[in-house]
């Protein structure tokens, strides 16, 4: 079981590395927001602004200490919870307190995240299954009708931006054919309690996102399957007497799809941070819209910090997951 040992060591090393990376990223985010030429303490201060009021604001918002101290308080809040002013107390894990909304940020995130997760996961499943199967079909029928049809799909999918495809879908499928009541467009339904309601809300936004991604995955799968099919080890598989079905399933796809794990993981992680355009079009109150609103309307620093931090955490953690998955898939990675 030496291979197993090595794998465990590899995973723990990667875990440690990820933790350090997360710390660095979070510190960096604090410094970046400190550099921005916007002062939240001044924004909350109306016409009769005096330095005293600004100072008081600054203290109230927790901005009167050094950046490192702010960061440290944030980390403490994550583990122990935090009292912000009288009455504003958030239990652990606390991501901060929004003075605009008079709510703990954790609660706000907890409300937005399931929406973003629904959207990302639904789209992910759709585009992976669609992209991979279309890619395989195109590769197996290289140069024939099905290949050409799929290349039209690829062209449309890659050249049509989501804000256009999304609006078209809203206009036609939702409004014209009235599949979803426009007033209920962005309503949240718990998929475990009301799966049909959930599907009504999320099917079309997921499809919008999936369309854009599926095209890229179709092209990627097609070229990888074609390339792998001409590998010597595929000829070996055929020389053994394996059937074409087994060769495709067990030999070609295994090698052709391994690189997809990497890009699929990172694409998915990117979406978990929020799909700004799609959420906007379909009126979904996910992390993407939450961030946009916090930046453009309220300049709600705790929310901006948390969503940014969350988005980068998704990417960093997904990187870890992808690397570990790759070690399982490719023995050459596992051994080195």
């Amino acid at each position, binding site marked *: 079981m030496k*291979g197993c040992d090595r794998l465990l060591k590899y995973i723990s090393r990667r875990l440690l590395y990820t933790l350090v990376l997360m710390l660095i990223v979070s510190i960096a985010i604090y410094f970046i927001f400190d550099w921005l030429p916007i002062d939240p303490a001044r924004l909350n201060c109306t016409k009769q602004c005096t330095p005293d009021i600004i100072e008081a604001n600054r203290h109230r918002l927790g901005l009167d200490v050094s950046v490192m101290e702010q960061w440290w308080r944030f980390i403490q809040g994550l583990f122990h919870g935090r009292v912000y002013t009288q009455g504003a107390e958030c239990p652990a894990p606390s991501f901060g307190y929004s003075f605009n909304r008079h709510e703990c940020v954790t609660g706000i995130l907890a409300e937005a995240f399931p929406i973003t997760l629904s959207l990302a996961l639904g789209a992910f499943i759709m585009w992976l299954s669609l992209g991979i199967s279309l890619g395989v079909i195109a590769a197996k029928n290289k140069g024939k009708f099905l290949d050409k049809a799929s290349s039209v799909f690829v062209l449309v999918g890659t050249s049509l931006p989501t804000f256009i495809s999304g609006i078209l879908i809203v206009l036609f499928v939702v409004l014209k054919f009235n599949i979803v009541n426009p007033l209920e467009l962005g309503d949240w339904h718990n998929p475990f309690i009301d799966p049909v309601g959930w599907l009504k809300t999320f099917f079309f936004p997921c499809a919008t996102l999936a369309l854009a991604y599926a095209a890229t995955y179709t092209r990627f799968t097609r070229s990888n399957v074609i390339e792998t099919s001409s*590998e*010597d*080890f595929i*000829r*070996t*598989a*055929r*020389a*053994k*007497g*394996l*059937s074409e079905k087994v060769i495709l399933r067990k*030999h070609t796809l*295994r*090698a052709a799809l*391994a690189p997809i794990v990497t890009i699929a993981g990172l694409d998915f992680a990117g979406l978990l941070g929020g799909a700004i355009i799609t959420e906007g079009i379909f009126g979904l109150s996910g992390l993407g819209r939450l961030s946009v609103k916090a930046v453009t309307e309220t300049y709600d620093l705790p929310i901006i910090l948390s969503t940014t931090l969350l988005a980068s955490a998704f990417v960093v953690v997904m990187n870890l997951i992808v690397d570990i998955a790759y070690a399982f*898939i*490719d*023995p*050459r990675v596992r*051994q080195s």
Partner: protein
Amino acid sequence: MSKFLEVKNLSVSFPTEDGVVLAANDISYSVDLGETLAIVGESGSGKSVTNLAVMGLHNPQRTQITGQAFINLESGPVDVISAPTEVVRRMRGKTMSMIFQDPMSALHPYYSVGDQIAEAWGLYNSGSKRDGFARAKEMLDLVGIPDVDKRVNEFPHQFSGGMRQRVMIAMALVNNPSLLIADEPTTALDVTVQSQILQLLGGLQKEFNMAIILITHDLGVVAEVADRVCVMYGGRIVENASIDETFYNPLQPYTVGLLNSIPRVDKLGSHRLSAIPGQPPSLINLPRGCAFEPRCQFASSVAGNLCKTTNPNLDEKSTDHFARCHLSTTQLHQLLAKNESGAK
């Protein structure tokens, strides 16, 4: 008596943008169980293309194949060229097996060698995965891989080139095939490993009474193992004879050239090592005359510009010795004798 494999008038061509590549042109040869046929020729002469056709491994959409290749089974002969693909597939790995030129890329990088051998075994045997691995270990042991209990679970990248080629041999032989096509099994390996692999193949052949087709571009390799030699040039067979006839009485100037390019112990002294100057012919639009003519030192000795205008037939120059040349046996012998005395 018909032999186990009989290839008759096999031609393989590939339509490409530049024209039709005629890679194998009217090829006939045969090999029997327990016998080794060597197919020799320069790179690009069509050795692999011919034998891939026998295995049914060409892409049918991009290849035109004519002719026949009979495998004479106890149940009767099967022409693998015209037989349905499913029939040929079920012969692959069991009736006929092939090992390939480059052991580095011929094994799947993501599966352990045990897995890959067991998969081949499982195709023609009913048994658990564990049985397959037990059989894989047996085979790895047979081909001389040490410490099989550990190595059976290792992956191709953990093996050296010579060891990988042994794995390939183990995999190709796991179902006791009657015919083994070894496509330059030793080209990528260093000299000592080369002779080990060839000895291994020879030993296994005796044990299992296999027919072996050994493809190589090195006549030197052939001497120790082959019973018969086919020399290929420009997609055609130019000489087909027993091993002794090929080495001691070559009847085709290209074969003579090949023999001159290997160091030989028996002719030491009178012999100068020389490679054949010039390039092999293009396989698109073959010349009307002899394909070897531009490189042949004897072409001018043939009367009436015949070498340029007419392609010679593969004639039986002496009993069971076929050669493709306008020169008669005596003419060639005279020219060779003259060359030899000139060299001295």
